[in-house]
């Protein structure tokens, strides 16, 4: 029986101590290496170490592998790997009817049932058999047997369970066992390394010898474009973008951060990578980090800062100052569930309004959003280019989904990276003299005869001196707005993800809804629907062609993970009929859900 298919969705779930994220990462890297496209979705408990075995302590890792380009981690899972009862019951609704459940039966014992809050007489595996195929193995036992001769405690040996499963899954998905072993060898040394390899082999062997062909689900693969690849999370992509910015700008970048989930990883990555020209600085809070970044920009570095929810709210005053000083600054908001402390580990797109309007006074600035991990690096570069070349703060929106989701990433060739050209720093220009694009010079301390003073009070045109003059204020308000409106010169042409340039239904999204939206629209489009998917990277100023584009459709629907923010902005600018699909649950949209919604809508509006 040929089990080879075009794509497969796998969900791993178990205790947060079970090493699930590691297992997932290994699997997707292998898949990516063998030429499959991969998208992932991680789900952590909010606690650092939630009580073991409980439902609240469940860690999940879902991925889709496919022979063709894919854009989302899939909806329902074809295969569910359950380390314990808690993992199974938390996510069981996600396994397709007829799918495969691989259960580590040691995680379904009486104690596990109790921890997961089930009665002792329940038998979840037995129940499951009614709807799905079940393959249960006592992975703990298998592991401890394989590790008999290794000098580790029982507890330490149990930790290798994920490696045993890795062995099994490697066989089941027909991936390269040797390459996997080499990879493990590189990561784990000493006794732990030995144990991991032994467990991996035991798992692989069992699968091979038990002849699990019936459970085998290989995914076809297609040769990827030539190049060097690695798997990357969105936060890692952002860190690479910051590294590249320093190089392309030819000036130092001060990255000033203060830890907050899920933005902290950017700081960790930079501290770990130590890229040339990047100074990572952990400040005492978010206000200090944005003002330090601004200080650095005044001194001729590019200041970059990132945060999430509460931290971004604290940066509003600093952003306003950046507008007034007309200094370059990049502020990255890795959005999470809000308001307030909210749902720190969940995803949401509910900070768009704040990005657009969250400052006192008329303080416009460019706002962009990253739509997927693979574009994080280039988006940071573009944000930095706009910030520097237009002397303005720029907000770049990411979110918890992008931050944590991994994709295979083809390393760009450095020669193809965009240039970033700082505006004039010649001392012969007045500090607030503007060029044709409305941009002032960036005269930095150290420049002889360039001395000038700037501040948060309204500045006189050209000189930058304090001015309380009414006309000057109106002119400066206009000039700042005008300068920001002109950043559209950095935009590429408006490009469509799926579909034609005119038609019946236009679907507009932004940010991390990209994958699910594109999958859903593509399916509808293939089914012959007149439907187009436009995904906006630039949220302010909007692409100048957006409104004309919208007019080419009978109906527009805006899809966001919030209560309707972009849709309100668009509605204020166009009379075109427009509806909205939103959710604010801390969870990403599923492509199936969107497919159904858009299908209905396209029928209604046809």
């Amino acid at each position, binding site marked *: 029986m040929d089990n080879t298919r075009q794509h497969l969705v796998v969900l791993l779930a178990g205790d947060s101590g079970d090493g699930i994220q590691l297992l997932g990462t290994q699997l997707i890297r292998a898949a990516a290496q063998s030429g499959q496209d991969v998208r992932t979705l991680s789900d952590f408990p909010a606690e650092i170490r939630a009580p073991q075995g409980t439902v609240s302590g469940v860690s999940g890792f879902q991925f889709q592998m496919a022979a063709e380009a894919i854009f989302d981690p899939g909806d329902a899972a074809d295969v569910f790997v359950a380390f314990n009862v808690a993992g199974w019951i938390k996510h069981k609704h996600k396994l397709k009817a007829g799918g495969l459940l691989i259960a580590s039966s040691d995680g379904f014992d009486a104690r596990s049932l109790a921890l997961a809050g089930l009665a002792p007489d329940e038998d979840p595996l037995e129940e499951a058999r009614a709807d799905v195929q079940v393959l249960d193995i006592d992975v703990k036992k298998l592991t401890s047997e394989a590790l008999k001769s290794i000098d580790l405690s029982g507890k330490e040996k149990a930790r290798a369970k994920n490696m045993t499963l890795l062995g099994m899954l490697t066989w089941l998905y027909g991936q390269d066992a040797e390459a996997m072993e080499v*990879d493990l060898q590189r990561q784990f040394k000493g006794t732990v390394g030995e144990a991991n390899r032994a467990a991996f082999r035991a798992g692989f062997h069992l699968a091979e010898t038990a002849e699990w062909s019936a459970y085998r689900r290989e995914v076809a693969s297609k040769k990827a474009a030539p190049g060097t690849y690695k798997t990357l999370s969105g936060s890692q992509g952002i860190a690479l973008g910051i590294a590249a910015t320093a190089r392309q700008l030819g000036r130092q970048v001060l990255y000033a951060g203060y830890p907050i989930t899920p933005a902290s990883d950017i700081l960790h990555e930079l501290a770990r990578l130590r890229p040339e020209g990047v100074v990572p*600085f952990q400040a005492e809070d978010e206000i200090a980090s944005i*003002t330090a970044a601004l*200080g650095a920009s*005044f001194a001729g570095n590019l200041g970059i800062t990132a945060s999430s929810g509460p931290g971004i709210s604290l940066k509003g005053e600093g952003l306003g*100052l950046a507008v007034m000083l007309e200094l370059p600054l990049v502020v990255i908001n890795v959005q999470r569930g809000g308001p307030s402390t909210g749902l720190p580990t969940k995803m949401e797109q509910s900070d768009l309004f704040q990005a657009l309007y969250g400052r006192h006074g008329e303080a416009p600035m460019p706002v962009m959003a990253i739509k997927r991990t693979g574009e994080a690096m280039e988006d940071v570069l573009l944000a930095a280019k706009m910030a520097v070349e237009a002397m303005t703060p720029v907000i770049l929106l990411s979110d918890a989904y992008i931050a944590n989701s991994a994709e295979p990433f083809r390393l760009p060739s*450095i020669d193809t990276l965009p240039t970033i050209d700082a505006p004039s720093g010649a001392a012969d220009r007045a500090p607030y003299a503007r060029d044709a694009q409305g941009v002032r010079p960036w005269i930095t301390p150290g420049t002889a005869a360039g*001395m000038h003073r*700037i501040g948060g009070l309204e500045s006189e045109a050209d000189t930058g001196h304090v001015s309380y003059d009414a006309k000057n204020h109106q002119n400066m308000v206009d000039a700042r707005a005008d300068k920001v409106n002109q950043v559209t010169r950095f935009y590429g042409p408006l490009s469509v993800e799926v579909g034609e340039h005119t038609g019946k239904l236009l679907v507009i999204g932004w940010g991390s809804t990209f994958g699910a939206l594109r999958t859903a629209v593509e399916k509808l489009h293939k089914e012959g629907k007149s439907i187009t998917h436009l995904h906006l990277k630039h949220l302010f100023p909007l692409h100048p062609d957006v409104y004309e584009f919208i007019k080419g459709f009978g109906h527009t629907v805006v899809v966001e993970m919030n209560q309707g923010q972009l849709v309100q902005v668009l509605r204020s600018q166009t009379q075109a009929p427009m509806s909205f699909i939103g959710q604010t649950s801390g969870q990403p949209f599923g492509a199936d859900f969107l497919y159904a919604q858009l299908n209905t809508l396209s029928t209604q509006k046809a």
Partner: protein
Amino acid sequence: MNGKDFLSDQEVRWCPGCGDYSVLKQFTEVLASLEADPANTVVVSGIGCSSRLPYYVNTYGIHSLHGRAPSVATGIKLANPSLDVWIITGDGDALSIGGNHLLHVLRRNVQVPILLFNNEIYGLTKGQYSPTSRAGALSKSTPLGSIDYPLNPQTLALGAGATFVARSMDRNPTHLRQILMLAKSHEGSALVEIYQNCNVFNDGVFEAFTDKKMQSDHAIFLTHGEPLVFGSHRDKGLVLSGSQVQVVSLTDRSASECWIHDERDPMKAYALARMTGDLRPFGVFYREDRSVFEKQVHRALSETRSLEEVLAMGRTWKVD
């Protein structure tokens, strides 16, 4: 260049008679004595009357946000450690809204002199009490007298781990210039509290210490290695017995029996800092050698990776 050459072309806009004028003057003269390069000098301030100073100095300057000058200055120094950066702040700016950043710049020991204009009032917002206002202070927000216990900038700085802590005043130009010179030569953050008269909203609060006549009985000027002696005839001295500071008469005692000022002694510095009554020390209370933050950061960064190396890090694979 002399002091005047360090003035910008902007009209100075403090109230006539304000103590800020003197500080500005001494500051520019110190820049002149230091032969400072205006193009390499950055004056950073928060918000307040005092924080307007950067506009009047012909260097680079940034009038930032209320309370945030220390963070802005830290960013500047991290960007370019070779710049000469100065912080100008007030008692409200540094100790009310900005207390946290002050702590952190001090403990990190970023190389920057900090001129804290203490007038025990919020000048710019027209006269509310500040964290340094005395108990009972009458102000717009405390018409019946303040009940907050005042913050002591000196003990606070010491407690935060500052490596240079000093006090001077607007009305003693020579002393002020001298302390500013010392602060500038210090390797690290140097907090200089400056008693400054706000003649509009808090006139005369420091009179006892700054008035030529009264001063000798109320101000003790510190010199490293010298005994703590004061009085118009230098006829009084201090002794430190255990935890107690005592005034002794020098008619039957020699000055050398007095407390000898040792600016390297943290305990003595703390004792000086605690003198908040009608006898107060002026000069350098404390100094300590400690490595400078921005230099250490840049040293730690010496082992960086090129973008090529960064991209190639971790597990990669090739498709040909």
